[in-house]
C-alpha cells in the first residue's frame, strides 16, 4: 500500500508557462507575488523568535557554558578558574563516591528498565480487551504515573519501606519479620527500583496504542492454523510491536539514567546508606549545590551526557537487528 503512495509522490508537476516578455505588467505582478511568497523577509523569524530565544538562551548557551565550566574550578560564588582536564582526571582516578554512584546508577537502569517495560507490556495486553468499563481500568493503572514523579509519593515510599512501615506490617501477617528496607545498603536501591516499576503507566499507554494498531487478519489466520496464544504472542504480537518496544526502551533508559527526585527524597538527600542510592544525578546535584563544586558538577553532567548518548547510539545500531518495521 505504501508503494502506491510512493509512486504518486514521484509525479512531477508541469512547470507554469513563462510570462511573455511583452506583458510587462503581468511580469511585475508575478515578481512581487513571488517575493512576498518566498522572502516574506523577516516575518517568519519574528514568529519563530520566542522559540529561538528559548533554544539559544535556555538550551544551547547553558550547554556550552557548562562545557566551559567543566574545565574550571568554580564554587558558584567566585569566578571560575581554568584547570584544564583536572575535573575529569579527579573523577576517574581519585573519587571513590563517583564510582559508587556509577555502580548504583547502572544497577538501577539495568534492573528497573526491563522490569518496568515487561510489566507495562503485560498490563497493556490485559487492558487490550473489550471489557465493560475498560476505560476505568486503564485510568486506574495509569494513575501511579501521574503521582509517581511527585515528592509526596517518594515521602510515602520512605514511610512504607521504613522499619515500622506498612510493608513490614504486611510481612508481619505472614509471620515474617522485616527489616528497615530504606536504611539497609543491600535493599535501599531496590525500593527505588520498585517505585520506578510501579510507574509503568506511560510505556503502558504507548504499548496499548501499539497493540490496537496490530492487524486483526493476521491473528485470525494464525488462530485458524491452530497457533496457541503463547505462540501468537511470540510470533505475531512481539515482532509487530518491536518499533514500539524500541521507542520505550530508548526513552526509559534515558529517563532512568536521569532519575533524581525519588533518590533525593527517599534517602533524605544523602544518597545513603553507604551511597547505595547515590544515583548519578543526585551526586551531581550534591557536588554542585551542596559542596559548591560547580565545575566538577558540570564535568559530571558532560560525562552523563556522553554516556546516555552512547547508550542511545548503541540502541539505534542494535535496533537494526531486532526491530521490524512492516514496510
Amino acid at each position: 500500500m505504501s508503494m502506491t503512495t510512493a509512486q504518486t509522490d514521484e509525479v512531477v508537476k508541469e512547470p507554469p508557462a513563462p510570462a511573455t516578455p511583452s506583458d510587462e505588467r503581468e511580469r511585475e505582478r508575478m515578481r512581487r507575488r513571488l517575493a512576498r511568497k518566498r522572502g516574506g523577509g523577516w516575518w517568519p523569524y519574528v514568529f519563530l523568535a520566542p522559540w529561538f530565544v528559548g533554544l539559544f538562551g535556555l538550551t544551547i548557551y547553558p550547554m556550552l557554558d557548562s562545557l566551559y565550566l567543566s574545565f574550571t574550578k568554580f564554587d558558584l560564588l567566585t569566578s571560575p578558574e581554568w584547570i584544564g582536564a583536572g575535573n575529569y582526571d579527579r573523577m576517574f582516578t581519585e573519587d571513590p563516591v563517583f564510582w559508587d554512584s556509577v555502580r548504583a546508577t547502572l544497577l538501577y537502569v539495568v534492573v528497573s528498565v526491563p522490569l518496568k517495560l515487561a510489566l507495562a507490556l503485560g498490563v497493556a495486553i490485559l487492558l487490550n480487551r473489550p471489557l465493560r468499563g475498560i476505560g476505568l481500568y486503564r485510568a486506574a493503572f495509569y494513575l501511579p504515573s501521574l503521582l509517581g514523579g511527585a515528592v509526596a509519593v517518594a515521602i510515602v515510599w520512605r514511610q512504607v519501606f521504613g522499619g515500622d512501615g506498612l510493608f513490614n506490617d504486611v510481612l508481619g501477617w505472614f509471620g515474617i519479620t522485616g527489616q528497615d528496607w530504606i536504611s539497609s545498603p543491600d535493599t535501599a536501591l531496590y525500593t527505588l527500583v520498585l517505585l520506578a516499576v510501579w510507574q509503568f503507566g506511560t510505556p503502558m499507554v504507548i504499548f496499548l496504542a501499539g497493540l490496537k494498531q496490530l492487524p486483526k487478519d493476521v491473528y485470525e489466520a494464525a488462530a485458524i492454523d491452530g497457533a496457541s496464544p503463547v505462540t501468537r504472542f511470540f510470533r505475531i504480537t512481539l515482532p509487530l510491536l518491536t518499533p514500539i518496544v524500541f521507542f520505550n526502551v530508548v526513552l526509559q533508559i534515558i529517563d532512568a539514567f536521569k532519575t533524581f527526585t525519588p533518590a533525593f527524597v527517599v534517602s533524605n538527600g544523602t544518597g545513603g546508606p553507604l551511597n547505595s542510592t547515590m544515583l548519578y544525578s543526585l551526586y551531581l546535584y550534591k557536588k554542585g549545590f551542596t559542596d559548591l563544586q560547580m565545575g566538577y558538577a558540570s564535568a559530571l553532567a558532560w560525562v552523563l551526557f556522553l554516556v546516555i548518548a552512547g547508550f542511545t547510539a548503541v540502541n539505534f545500531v542494535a535496533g537494526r537487528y531486532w526491530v521490524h518495521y512492516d514496510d
Partner: protein
Amino acid sequence: MGHQISRRTLFRTASGLAAAGALGSALTACGGGTGAGSANDRLTMTWWGSDERHAAYKKALAAFQKKNSAIEIEERYSGYDGYFDKFNTNVAGGSAPDLLQMDTALVAQYARKGVLAPLDSYVGKSLDLTGFSRTLLAAGTVDGKLYGVPSGIGVNQLTVNRSGLEKLGLDFPDPEWTWADLKKISVDIHKKSGGKIYGTDDVGGGALQAFEIFAREKGEQLFSADGKKLGFTSDTLQEWWEYWADLRRADACPPPAVTSAAHNDLTKNAVVIGKALFTFDTGVYGAGGSITDATLDFLPTPQGDWSGAREGNYVNGGVLLSATKASKRVADSVKIVSYLAQDPTAIKDMQLLRGIPPTEKARDLIKAGLNDTDRRNLAMADHISSRVAKASDVLDAPQPPPQGADQIWDLLFQSNLSIAFGRTTVKSQLGRFFDQAAGILSA
C-alpha cells in the same frame, strides 16, 4: 493511508527527537540560574529552625517593624535541609538575602569567599554588643573581622530521656561521668529493658561535636590552625571508632540501620522513636521538645577516663546573624541584629530558641518565663561553661571550620556506618579516611 510518512520514519524520528530532548535537559539542568532578584525594596531575611523558632522570629520582627516603619522585612524561613543549597543558588544568581541566620560551621567559608559583610565598623554605634564576651564573639570572627553576631551560648549537651531511665529503675548519671560510665549504663539499659531499648545513639560518625570533644580531651583539635590539615591523630580516631564498635557489640547502641535512618532526619532519632535513652543530637531538644513526649534532661559529653585527660568542652556561639556583602541594606540589617540581641521583648520572645542568650541581662530576663525542661537545659549549660572557665588544661575554642569541613563530617559518618555494617574494618577504614580527608582539604 494518505500520508507519506512510513511507520519506520515515524518511530525512528520520534525516538530520536525524544532522545535528543531528554539528553538536552540533562545538561541544561546544570547550566541555568537567573536571579529572580527582589522587585521591591523590602529587606529580605532568611533563617532555618523549628516552628517554635519561626514563630518567635516573626513576633520579634513584627515588634521591630512597629518601631522602625521605614524598614520592611520579607521573611523567608525553612528547616535546615536545603537551607544553604538555596542560599548558594541565590548568591550565585544575585538575589542573596540581606540578612541571614548563619551556621558557625560555615561562616569562615562564606566570609573568605567574600559573601558576607564585615560588621566591625558598626560595633558600638548601631550594633550594640554590650555584655557579649570576646570568646563568644570569636565564633563569628574570621581572620580578625566580625562576620556574624552570635545569638547565644552553645555548649554541647546530651539529651536524656529521664522518664525512661526512671522506668527502668536506673539512676540519673552524675554530670562528671566518663565514657566508661556511658558504656556501663547503656549496657544496663539494654539488659533491664529486656533488649527493647539501647542505651545511646551511635555517634561513632557524628554528632560531630561528640568526636570533637573526645579529641580535645586527648589534647587535639579537629583541624590544624591553618585549616589545611586534620588536627587529630589516627590513634585518636581509631580509639573512637573502636569504642563505638565495642558498644555495638554489647548492644549498648542500636544497629546501623537505625543510625542510618536517623541521618538528616530528626523524626527517626533513636530517642524520638524510643529505641535509646541518650542522644548526642542536640536537635531533639532544639525542636522545642515537641518531637517527643518523654521528660528530657541533660548531661555534658562524657569525660576522658585515661590519665592526662583534659577538659574537652568549649563555648560556641549558637547560631549567627550575618549580613551579605552584596546587600545595599547592611546598615538596616545591623539594626535588626542589634534589636534581637538587646531588646527585652525580643529576648523574651526568643527564649532559648536560638541557644542560651549571650548576655547576663538577657538570661535574667527570660529565666522567669522558662518551662522545666528549659530550666534544666540552662542549668546544665551554666554548669558546663563554669567547668570550662575553671579548667586550666582546656584548649582554645576551635576556629570556625575550613572549607570542605562538611564533606569531612560526611566522610566520618559514612566511615563509621561502613564499619557498623561490616563492610570494612576500623584498621582499613583509617587509611582511607585520612587519604580522602587530605584530598578534600587540599581541593
